[in-house]
């Protein structure tokens, strides 16, 4: 059996944003009204998940400075995106501090002007011909991941009369099972747009907001090259059950 003696720490639904958070207007019609049905006996269906160690990745999949170029003939500085060069790195651990090795971390973001390279984004800030905005990598043996990118810009969006998203990078992590699956956003320490963002405000507990702040880490910055922001991810803790259920 694939699920013997295993379960995960219960997800705290009061810590995460509720489905219905009316200040974020789109959530109103997209949130269930019925209660979630709790599976008191998680099965192999919930306790297992994909392992991406055999997914073939390109050499620059985690390097957004180099992984997109409208004109592939451009070389050197002419082929680099505009914006503040930065490293985003961190560790994926579970709630007991145990590293989560070889798990897939994916990210996507706007360019330095706050524009996404997406068919549906029509913001007037221009696309950057040298920036795609997507990255992915596996964590190493100790749970570390690392991307190189530019700092995304804030941008306006239709919610209130004048809502702006703080600069952010979307982050997706798989973890050891589909029970640990998580998508979040990394914000930047000190950004004054964070406390007034309706999407950040979907979260009720200020301590939970702090878990989404990437912190400047001068020790990992490269002199005369780029700054570094550290963003650790915590996924649900894995428990062993030692006694038979009878």
């Amino acid at each position, binding site marked *: 059996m694939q699920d013997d003696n295993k379960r995960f720490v219960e997800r705290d639904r009061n810590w995460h944003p509720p489905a219905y958070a009316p200040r974020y207007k789109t959530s109103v*019609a997209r949130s269930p009204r019925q209660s979630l049905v709790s599976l008191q006996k998680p099965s192999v269906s919930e306790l297992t998940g994909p392992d991406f160690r055999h997914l073939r990745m390109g050499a620059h999949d985690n390097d957004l400075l180099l992984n997109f170029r409208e004109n592939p003939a451009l070389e050197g500085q002419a082929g680099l995106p505009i914006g503040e060069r930065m490293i985003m790195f961190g560790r994926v651990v579970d709630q007991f501090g145990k590293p989560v090795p070889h798990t897939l971390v994916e990210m996507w973001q706007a360019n330095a002007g706050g524009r996404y390279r997406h068919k549906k984004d029509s913001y007037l800030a221009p696309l950057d011909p040298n920036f795609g905005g997507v990255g992915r990598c596996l964590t190493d043996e100790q749970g570390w991941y690392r991307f190189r990118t530019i700092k995304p810009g804030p941008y306006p969006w239709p919610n209130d009369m004048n809502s702006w998203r703080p600069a952010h990078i979307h982050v997706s992590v798989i973890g050891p099972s589909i029970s640990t699956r998580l998508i979040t956003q990394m914000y930047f320490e000190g950004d004054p747009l964070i406390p007034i963002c309706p999407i950040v405000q979907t979260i009720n507990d200020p301590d939970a907001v702090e878990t989404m702040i990437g912190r400047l880490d001068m020790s990992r910055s490269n002199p005369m090259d780029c700054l570094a922001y550290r963003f650790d991810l915590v996924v649900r803790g894995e428990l062993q059950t030692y006694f038979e259920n009878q």
Partner: protein
Amino acid sequence: MKQPNTVPSSELMLRETASQTAGPYVHIGLALDVAGLPEREEEIWNQLAKPEAEGEHIEVVGTVIDGNGDLVRDALIEAWQANAKGEYQPEFDLQKPFNSFGRTATTASGDSEWTLHTIKPGAVTRSDGKVMAPHINLAIFARGINIHLQTRLYFEDETRANAVCPVLNAIESPVRRQTLIAKREEADGKIRYRLNIRLQGEGETVFFDF
């Protein structure tokens, strides 16, 4: 370090990173072709089964509908299912004929259907010996969804297995169990199962916590 036995056990544990919506541009990160980006060497997408995979080849399709009855055109769905023998294959490898994991998205125009090309999963036995009817686990991400919604898709023609499935039976309302049952269609020589996911209101899909 905290002194043992002096603090509640909850304080000895880290809190999970909080969830945020995947937003309208989720495709840039997880469905590059949908965003209009060039694909990389390998992408995680909606063909779980190649033609040589063992089992009954099926297409699974559906829409996502919001509380107003409108199509959700920017949803991303992840699927996790057993193979034809009822076993999960965690090792994702596109060289293999079958993978348990896949992704799909609703479309920005037209009928806005998501599609999976897969095989019908076998029944899955729980560690307590109870047999769960064949099912596909689905997670739904979209703009306006603050934390992904988790559900299961079951098959209409598995009447007997569905009737005794411990998970379907954990849903108190028999009427609501029906929201998880995909309808079987046969079209162009293909077997197709259809499940519309209703986020809110009449016929609201059952979503699970686990």
